[in-house]
């Protein structure tokens, strides 16, 4: 390959440099019907799973077809999305916060043609390219993080766990039979780039071994005080270590029993890696939400302390998720979110019906807030 210049001159980096211009203005990207009716929408209806109509005060209608997508997307796939939008939607489209693709049209006929077109597109491997769904009282796309595809701190893979889970719950992506919407989120380590801590069901990668110390290099690549300060439980202290060659170097020591494997030290110091095939795996959390509807937003709670990584399809994990969803579908009332259902029946009943083991790991012992989660009443269920 021959180097192709964009026009940038490395000798004079400031020459004609353009900075601080931000994103493109949204006005340029709105479909015409959106631009015309912005702020004047009257109501909407979900016609069937994945198909919405929004009606403006003047009677204008916009039909939206929502499709799932792997958030990891190739340029070729995006070019195909563009072909579809050019053919059916005047060259406009959008993505949702939960990585769905939305194609919009201004008539029902166009929407039907679009729907038929999308439904027949498949990858060579056999999976749908553009499954239609993800609306209403069902399961929409899983927001997730990078995992082994592109991150240095994951305790599991993100794309793989998501693919395995979405395959298992796919019928609920294309249906609206649940008591309320159910949001699944995935983060591949405690850093939670995906902020899964308020999800109906959260899949979280977690380490279980303290950092390994690369003493020979630690002081050369890390600031020891930063590594020490990074630890939330004060488990790390500066130390001197004698290497095999007799040389004494500055390094750190870790009080293993204090470590909660958060990896904050590794973020500050690359000589303290945590990942380990046996130590790493999955935590499942449940019962969180972000909406203020009926009850206040709430955090998800840990319901499975650890499951090993089972590549490539994590069957124990998907089985546990599926079981929780089925029990929720059976037991919850219309409009009741997962966490409202567990609050009503009590967590003791939840572990019962979902056939999950309750172990000492699930009792909070981290900081003052832990106390708030212990039962402080004589009311409980046998």
């Amino acid at each position, binding site marked *: *390959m021959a*180097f192709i*210049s*964009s026009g*940038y001159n490395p000798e004079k*980096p400031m020459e004609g*440099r353009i*900075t*601080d*211009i*931000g994103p*493109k*203005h*949204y*006005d340029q990207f709105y*479909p015409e019907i959106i631009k015309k009716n*912005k702020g004047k*929408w009257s109501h*909407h*209806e979900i*016609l069937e*799973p994945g198909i919405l109509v929004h009606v403006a005060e003047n009677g204008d209608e916009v039909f939206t077809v929502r499709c799932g*997508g792997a958030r990891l997307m*190739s*340029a070729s796939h*995006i070019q195909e*999305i*563009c072909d579809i939008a050019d053919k059916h939607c005047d060259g*406009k489209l*959008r993505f*949702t*916060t939960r990585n769905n693709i939305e194609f919009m049209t201004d008539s029902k006929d166009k929407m039907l043609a679009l729907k038929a077109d999308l439904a027949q597109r498949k*990858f*060579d491997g056999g*999976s*749908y390219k553009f499954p239609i769904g993800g609306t*209403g009282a069902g399961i929409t796309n899983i*927001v997730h993080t990078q995992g*082994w*595809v592109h991150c240095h701190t994951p305790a599991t*893979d993100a794309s793989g766990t998501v*693919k395995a889970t979405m*395959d298992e719950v*796919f019928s609920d992506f294309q249906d609206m039979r*649940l008591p309320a919407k159910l949001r699944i989120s995935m983060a591949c380590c*405690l*850093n*939670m780039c995906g*902020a899964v801590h*308020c999800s109906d069901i959260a899949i979280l990668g977690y380490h279980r071994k303290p950092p390994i110390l690369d003493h020979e290099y630690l002081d050369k690549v890390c600031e020891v005080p930063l590594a020490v300060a*990074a630890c939330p439980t004060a488990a790390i202290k500066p130390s001197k270590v004698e290497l095999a060659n007799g040389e004494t170097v500055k390094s750190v020591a870790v009080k293993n029993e204090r470590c909660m494997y*958060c990896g904050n030290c590794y973020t500050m110091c690359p000589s303290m890696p945590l990942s*380990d095939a046996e130590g790493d795996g999955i935590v499942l959390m449940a019962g969180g939400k*972000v909406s*203020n509807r009926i009850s206040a*937003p709430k*955090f998800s709670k840990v319901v499975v302390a650890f499951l090993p990584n089972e590549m*490539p399809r994590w069957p124990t994990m998907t089985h546990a998720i599926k079981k929780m969803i089925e029990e929720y579908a059976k037991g919850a009332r*219309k*409009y009741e979110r997962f966490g409202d259902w567990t609050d009503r029946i009590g967590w003791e009943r939840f572990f019962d019906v979902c056939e999950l083991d309750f172990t000492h790991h699930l009792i909070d012992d981290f900081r003052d807030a832990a106390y708030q989660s212990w039962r402080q009443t004589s009311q409980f269920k046998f």
Partner: protein
Amino acid sequence: MAKHNTPLLDELESGPWPSFVSDIKQEADVRAKNEKGIDFQIPSEACDDLLGLLELSYKDGTTHWKHGGIVGVFGYGGGIIGRYSDKPKEFPAVAAFHTIRVSQPGAKYYTTEFLRQLMDLWQLRGSGLTNMHGSTGDIVLLGTTTPQLEEIFYTLTHDMDQDLGGSGSNLRTPADCIGQSRCEYACYDTQEICYFLTMMYQDELHRPAFPYKFKFKFDGCPNCCVASIARSDLSFIGTWRDQIGIDQAEVAKYIDGTNPANAGAHKGRDWGAFDLDAEVLNLCPTECMKYEDGKLTINDKECTRCMHCINVMPKALKIGKQRGVSLLAGAKAPIVDGAQMGSLIVPFLEIDQTMNKQLADFESEEEWMEYLEEKYAGVVEVIESIWDYWMEEGKNRERLGELMIRQGLQKLLEKIGMEPQAVHVDHPRTNPYIFWKEDEVPGGWDRDINEYRKHHAR
């Protein structure tokens, strides 16, 4: 013919959900065949080697990406995340595989023209793999080499009028819900304020000067579709303070089953006939609704605007007309001291509904920005007093929420000039350990022990 055998990953090609493995293979194939005759500026086998490296992780259960590596474009401290593999010999095409965050447009609307231009650039100068989108909201371009960074930035800024997003200890790329562009629940123009603040704070976004990351997110209503309350240091949630609009004729159509409940969200199961009492009145958290003599009434003074009744009957019930935002501060994921939800700091900041001029109504974007500075002056004041406080008092890598816990909610309220009110708390404190200020106690704290002893023997 695939470069590496990937038996484990191949198992992720079956099943109905879109397979990322099939998609990466598709891009690998496009690069191998190169029918467009692209002079690839990073190794053409990048997608193959990524699959090979990922297969290795699936085999041995650990990541093969190394820690960081400081790369970037001149003058910016964010927007690019360096990434190197720990198996450069086995998978040379992804030895260096940096991420570029591209600032996404409002509510993630696109023209195909823009996306095609971006993908042409990315197939030429990167792996051709993306995330649409990253968790914070950016377009994420996944995998290129160091020499390509300035070239990509040059093309983005010169040919596409497009900038990078944030990373590191700076303002992260703000994100918004679909808002008024296609949602009847939106109480303010989320795209407008998101764009305005993104442009206003470009310096804070590109050049890390904060103790740690800082996120704004804009939810048009309390349904919180972008989850601002859980994951932004400053969460904007649209709300109103007058009455919910009621169309009695449409209420009747919900009762007789003509209108589908909750806009049809429950069509997948037979839940029986619509029951206004069970589905709306009895689920209202403040029990402020009544249905008598064929008429629905709401005691708006007691309403806490949870959205349930409006969600169930969107044709009959409308958000109020005196609209604005509630501001909540300090939300974050668990790292390090545990997860935090946003705490209410400004109950209601009215947004002037008559100030609705658009960019097209002005000669230039500068004039429009000045107009918005006036419109959102109250918001800007709150933001800047929070930043002044956090930059002064926050420790290295301390999120705003952690500082709030360390110093107390009242400290932040004081800094933003907000009078503490009962709505700021779920309940008042359960201990009397109040940190009285000296000037609140008559006579102050300087006392004379000799004077005291005149009345109290030793």
